[in-house]
């Protein structure tokens, strides 16, 4: 059993990277508000969610350091997202086809 004092990534995220990510996130927030201000029917929610997913991806990868973590955690995050998506999809199959 080894003593593991440091995180696997001795990687330290630079301040500039974090600030840049923030700027992008803020920009995407405004994008979301803009695209939902006109009526695009079903596309509104799709696009809004898509942008939210991009924002989420940035938070996960850079703020939560996932980009620099070991493969195991990346796979697990993917797995959980897939599980959640499947649960929603399967439940929808009930409601959409009643």
């Amino acid at each position: 059993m080894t003593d593991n004092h440091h995180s696997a990534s001795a990687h330290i995220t630079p301040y500039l990277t974090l600030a840049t990510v923030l700027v992008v996130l803020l920009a995407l927030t405004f994008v979301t508000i803009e695209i939902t201000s006109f009526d695009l029917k079903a596309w509104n929610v799709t696009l809004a969610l898509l942008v939210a997913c991009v924002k989420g991806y940035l938070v996960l990868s850079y703020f939560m350091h996932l980009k620099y973590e070991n493969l195991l955690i990346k796979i697990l995050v993917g797995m959980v997202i897939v599980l959640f998506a499947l649960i929603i999809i399967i439940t929808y199959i009930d409601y959409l086809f009643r």
Partner: protein
Amino acid sequence: MEIFAQEKINKFIGKMRAEVQEFYRGTYLENTGRYKGIWAWLTSTDHKRIGLMYLYAIAAFFIVGVIIGLLMRIELISPGKTIVEPQTYNGFFTVHGIIMIFMVVIPGLSATFGNFCLPIMIGARDVAFPRLNLFSFYLFLFGSFLAILSQFLRHGPPDTGWTFYAPYSTTTGTNVIMATTAAFILGFSSILTGLNFIVTVHRMRAPGMTFFRMPLFPWALYATAWIQLLATPVVGITLLMIIAERLFNIGFFNPELGGDPVLYQHLFWIYSHPAVYIMILPAMGVITEIIPTFCQRKVYGYKAIALSSVAIAAVGYLVWGHHMYTSGMSGKSLWLFSFLTFVVAVPSAIKVFNWLATMYKGSIDMKPPFLFALFFIFLFTIGGLTGLVLGALATNIQVHDTSFVVAHFHYIIFGGMGFAAFAAVHYWFPKMYGRMYNIKQATIASIIMFIGFNLLYFPQFIIGIEGMPRRYYDYFPEFQPAQVISTIGGFVLTAGLILMFYNLIRSARKGEKAPANPWNGTTLEWQIPSPPPLENFEEIPHIEEKPYSFK
């Protein structure tokens, strides 16, 4: 004269204590820390002590659940009122379910033998987070306390069934909030145990022990831990929603406000179906440990068994709708869930074939653990096959909400997991206590239980198909003969249980000293002394071979 007798008694007790302490010296049962007596246990972060504390608590709750079950059986021995009023009966089946499911079977083998054996079997000194482990146990006790409290508070015990279906659970006057809070806390305990085990398996395996050199009980516990972790939060939020409905009339499941009661069922079963795999996967893991040992042969199809545990866990998340075929779901939903249900049966069947194949041409030793394992296979198979009857859409309509379902799940949970638990106790008992129980008594007890079990539950399949509803206090007279046989079976089963408990409790204190490896097992727990020392290993072993290499 009296003082002389008192002194003699004190001297005797002192001598017994000294003998016990001598027996335990150098093992995890010796009290070396700051605390003595029961506090040495309640403050211990040693996974072995935590495992035993869970075992005792769960055994106690199991006995309570059995008593309530017997009371239900007595009530059902004849139509109409026998010993209690209908409202009381509703309370009985609710609390029987809550206790058995949330306080016995779900923590079940993970919390008890998982805690005790997992670190040892992977060559570790403890789990990844020992203090979190103890905290999980406290949560378990607290949640259990609240569940019991819900029986006695002002508004009366919950009468909703353990499934708390809306809209009845959101409108009934009974102590639903207390019971759902209890379930929430118990769920949290389960989540934290799952978390602990996942990190333990990933980070604490002995050097050389790759995933595919890990024995199969740890594999099962690992797959189970993922279900505990990911499925339980869903029922957590669902229970909170029930509480919100009751307190704030929020409307999620109330048709008058636009809500859909079927959505409750979706949410509830999204957890509760995977929950049954929490119950059965460790049980299958236990059987997979016992069979090679008592056949002195390596497991047939190690990888298939390991991966089938993972497959069951994964596909098990997607089949929840088979509890809801008659609820009004869409047609597409119906066939999707039925199809996936048949798919998930496959990995379970793979295990059964592999167990049987392991036995073939093995050198079989019919000791109690193995006997219980054989009973498991028989009872689990019946339970599993009747599950297919329930999983098929057309036949489900006939048997949904009948005692056919009751028989099915008791065969799986009690015949399956329960007998596997008994097998586990009889397998690891010498390791845990350093003593052996009476083999003959154990064998007789197991046979009595097997007979009683089948008498108790098999008739319920028959009257279920004939139309006997579940959770019903009263019934048509034509069902009575079967109900009588069933009740008799319940008492026969209880007699077996009493004999088994007596044997085990007596032997824990007074049984013959057991060697480190009485069954000639090959996994790591058998390579250390019985009882194990506090830190399990003098030196962490280096693993060179695959498990189950019998010489």
